[in-house]
């Protein structure tokens, strides 16, 4: 499996990226860590006219706390975020989820924003972005806009990004004081795509459960601060509302059962680590 022919553009400024995207639109593909795009090229699922390497664009590589948000630039690799000294204090859900993203050997190249850009319904990072009410910062030669994760993640490998836009950064709200966060995943093998992944946030007045791997995009539901049987019933209702499908990895029924069991356990884990 070899990639098809394409021009290679080594962008050295945001203006470069915007110019190529304005010219070629969907025929240009942005290359950051390459952990999703490169297999897609080799399997010829995409045939772009040009591949634009954005890893030499200054200003895309930073992780910074800005007010209540953590800004993660398009060039930040998953391993960089995992090694960020403020991760546990600022983004405990990401700290729990990142070890599930691929393997050490792919996290060292793959970027956080790249995973968001591809929006695989089983991927951990879009799920966390949705669970935490993150936003996606897009820019193009037309200007900048911010899109909430709930509107950005449209469906299977499909997002609200326009063809001429670059994800410049994502913005994730910092840990809320008093809230608890937990993440769990079930797959055949550690590092495989999730059959079901669950992220839970237990805050002062509400519980949120977000699940990936079930529908064609991550889904979330908020509950009041309930527990025990009422919570189990509420999660059951959520699991039935999900557009679960059978595939060769698991049946829809099996996925719903995972949402009920693992979803409940993840919420209880988040409740225990409130602080």
């Amino acid at each position, binding site marked *: 499996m070899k*990639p098809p022919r394409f021009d290679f553009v080594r962008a050295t400024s945001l203006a470069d990226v915007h110019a190529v995207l304005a010219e070629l639109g969907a025929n240009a593909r942005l290359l950051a860590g390459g952990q999703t795009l490169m297999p897609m090229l080799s399997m010829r699922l995409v045939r772009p006219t040009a591949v634009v390497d954005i890893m030499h664009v200054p200003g895309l590589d930073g992780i910074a706390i800005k007010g209540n948000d953590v800004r993660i630039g398009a060039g930040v690799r998953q391993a960089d975020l995992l090694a960020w000294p403020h991760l546990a204090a600022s983004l405990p859900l990401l700290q729990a989820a990142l070890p599930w993203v691929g*393997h050490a*050997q*792919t996290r060292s190249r793959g970027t956080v924003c790249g995973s968001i850009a591809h929006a695989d319904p089983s991927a951990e990072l879009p799920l966390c972005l949705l669970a935490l009410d993150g936003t996606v910062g897009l820019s193009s030669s037309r200007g900048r806009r911010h899109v909430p994760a709930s509107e950005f993640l449209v469906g299977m490998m499909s997002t609200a990004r326009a063809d001429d836009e670059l994800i410049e950064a994502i913005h994730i709200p910092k840990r809320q004081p008093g809230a608890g966060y937990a993440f769990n995943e079930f797959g055949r093998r550690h590092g495989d795509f999730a059959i079901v992944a669950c992220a839970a946030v237990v805050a002062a007045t509400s519980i949120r459960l977000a699940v990936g791997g079930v529908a064609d995009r991550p889904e979330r539901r908020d509950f009041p601060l309930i527990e025990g049987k009422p919570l189990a019933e509420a999660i059951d209702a959520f699991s039935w509302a999900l557009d679960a499908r059978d595939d060769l990895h698991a049946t829809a029924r099996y996925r719903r059962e995972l949402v009920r069991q693992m979803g409940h356990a993840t919420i209880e884990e988040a409740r225990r680590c409130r602080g």
Partner: protein
Amino acid sequence: MPRLSADTSHMVRLTLNGQTVEAAAEPRMLLTDFLRHALGATGTHVGCEHGVCGACTVEIDGMLARACLTLALQVDGATVRTVEGLAPGPGRLSVLQEAFRRHHALQCGFCTAGILMSLDHYLRRNTNPSEAELREFLGGHLCRCTGYVPIVAAALDAAKVLRETKADA
């Protein structure tokens, strides 16, 4: 901004195992093929070509990378280490390679180059890994011969030798 045409080859210069090397590559050429066919460094193996099996794992600027998920043009100016760079000299093996031999940690050897690169990278940062840590780390590699048990044993043994060497130094 440089836009390199799909139909022509472009010179890529990099440091490979300490030596400056250069060769031409079309934009679509993968680093695996570039290493093997353009530079003649055939130690890096090509398995699945979509990042799953880990056979082509190399180090780029000190970070582990799947060479099959990297374009040759991306390593222009970079420092790359491959399995050819592990042995300290001709006719000698590294501590990790010796441990692989002692423990029969390979049979067909197809996955070995990538696993050696990963473990070499890991053991240079942590010479006291637990078996569980090593197994999680090896999750990024597929071996269809050994069942992984001798690979884990070799890695633990190499870590022990490295700790003792450190203590002696």
